[in-house]
């Protein structure tokens, strides 16, 4: 049995009379010990999936589908049961480390509170955290604890957040865009950080990112998202080296190192999604069928692809 199973997850945000479909009918499984990557452009719905798993979306969000974690459906848990899973069994590494740390509380307290309400000794826990901080390239952790977040650099904040998320040795770590807004040097640091986390803990990880380098470096399998649905899912090296879906191909050739060829057009309005393939209007190889019928996701060469012409690609 997989550690995490997502079945038909859809998320909508009501906007006046309409609803914005952020995620539509997403299903995938994450095996124990695996690093699973969710990639796609901004607004493709990848972060929403991460937040939906821990039920951290605003109350107004309409969520349907099932998320099975260790045999439990996360969507039918009571608040107290959910709290026992949050931060302990599944922890979230939020995007934007600057915003995720409370500016008016000392770093030490913000680490310490991970161990609150957990029936564990706080001091014991802090010792573990301090050790972990050293491992994650943070020098002089005791001093860091007496400082406030604004006194740290961006890279340090991110490692501090990583430390908070890992302190409890969660079974599943959801890392939401860990390299967003970091400069190239800190980005390289983040790649090191994640390789290290993966090697040392061997924990299951759901990595949400638009950084293809990071994804290739760390992920075992990758799902590519477009307009709220998965368009391609396969082993990381296959997706990024021999992409099948036209969108994945476009995404890869838009990388600076591959010539910075932009994808034409814009992703469709999520209030009124097109009838056919969501990618139809931007696709270089679309046919008549593509504008009429929404393609189902189908098996193809060991992976999954959502395209009418997958055998031709």
């Amino acid at each position, binding site marked *: 049995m997989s550690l995490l199973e997502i079945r038909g997850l859809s998320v909508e945000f009501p906007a006046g009379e309409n609803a914005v479909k952020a995620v539509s009918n997403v299903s995938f499984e994450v095996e124990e010990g695996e690093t699973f990557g969710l990639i796609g452009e901004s607004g493709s719905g990848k972060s929403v999936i991460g937040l939906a798993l821990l039920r*951290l979306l605003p109350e107004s969000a309409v969520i349907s589908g099932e998320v099975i974690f260790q045999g439990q459906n996360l969507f039918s848990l009571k608040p107290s049961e959910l709290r026992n899973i949050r931060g302990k069994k599944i*922890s979230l590494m939020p995007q934007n480390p600057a915003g995720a740390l409370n*500016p*008016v*509380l000392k770093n030490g307290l913000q680490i310490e*509170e991970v161990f609150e309400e957990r029936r564990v000794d706080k001091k014991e826990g802090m010792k573990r955290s301090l050790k972990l901080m050293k491992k994650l390239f943070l020098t002089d952790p005791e001093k860091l604890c007496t400082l406030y977040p*604004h006194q740290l650099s961006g890279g340090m904040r991110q490692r501090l957040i990583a430390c908070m998320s890992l302190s409890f040795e969660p079974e599943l770590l959801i890392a939401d865009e860990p390299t967003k807004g970091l400069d190239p040097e800190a980005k390289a640091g983040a790649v090191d950080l994640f390789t290290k986390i993966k090697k040392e803990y061997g924990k299951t990880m759901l990595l949400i990112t638009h950084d293809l380098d990071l994804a290739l470096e760390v992920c075992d399998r990758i799902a590519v998202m477009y307009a709220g649905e998965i368009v391609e899912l396969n082993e990381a090296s296959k997706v990024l080296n021999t992409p099948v879906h036209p969108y994945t191909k476009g995404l890869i050739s838009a990388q600076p190192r591959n010539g910075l060829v932009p994808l034409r057009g814009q992703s469709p309005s999520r209030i009124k999604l097109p009838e056919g393939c969501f990618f139809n209007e931007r696709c270089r190889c679309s046919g008549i069928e593509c504008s009429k019928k929404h393609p189902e996701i189908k098996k193809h060469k060991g992976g999954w692809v959502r395209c009418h012409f997958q055998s031709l690609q």
Partner: protein
Amino acid sequence: MKYLIKRAGFMAFTVFAVCALTFFLMNVIPGGTAELILKHTLIGLEESATEEQLSQISSRYNLDDPLYLQFYWWVKEAVLRGDIGTSYIYNKPVLYLLTLRLPATVQLAGASMAIATLAGVSLGIYSALQENRISDHILRIVTLFGVSMPGFWIALILIIIFSLKLKLVQVSGYGNLENLILPAAALSLHSVAAVMRVTRTSMLETLGQEYIRFAKAKGLPVWKIISRHALKNAMLPVVTVIGFQMGNLLGGAVVIEKIFAWPGIGSLLVDSISARDLPMVQGCVLAIVTMFLLVNFIVDILYTHLDPRIRYG
């Protein structure tokens, strides 16, 4: 330290400017000061006032000198000897009269401020947590009423309901807690509403921050998220408004004290203005301005304790 000196300098300048303004404005009011003083001393014999008596009084209080000289002497005495003049009417030092009246005003303004802070902040938090539910809407309508109704009108209504109809408390009086209830309620209503509205807005904004979501992801219970993560951040604008409300309270106290015959500086000020007792008016204004400046100074110091990012230099 450097900041404190700078700040004290600004406060001294503000006090000076307000005193100058009061002094010259009081002299713009038509009617000779000497005549009024004479009338107060010769009650019943007003008609018998002679030119001689008038000039006697004028020379005693230097009323024949040009205004700027009168003001210069007043400032000189105040700064060098701490003597801010002698009341024309009571024939006693202004400072002494102020110390008699100050406790009553401090009591009333302090009680109102405490009510405004406690009720305003807790109702604001409650309203924010109940956002867009029925209790939130009711509270918001009530506060709209609160900020729109003038304090003196509220005072009269309170007297009619609680003193005259229900006969629960006396209309006026001074000395015990029971007497304080109506004036403090009437005076604070406006501030309660203002503080509540700011608390609600600020709390809602804070609750939408990323660090709140991260705190949830850590598995903290709601009350800890509110009390530890949200409250301190949300309090910054609230503290500012409470500081400003002090001005409203002191200003409102002038009228409210008169209505409830409360023996504070406010009613003294009203009496002194109608008697054209210039030194006394000057003294009352000085006391009120000083109180207002002190409270706002305390507020600024509070900032640094609430938000470690704020430093004065």
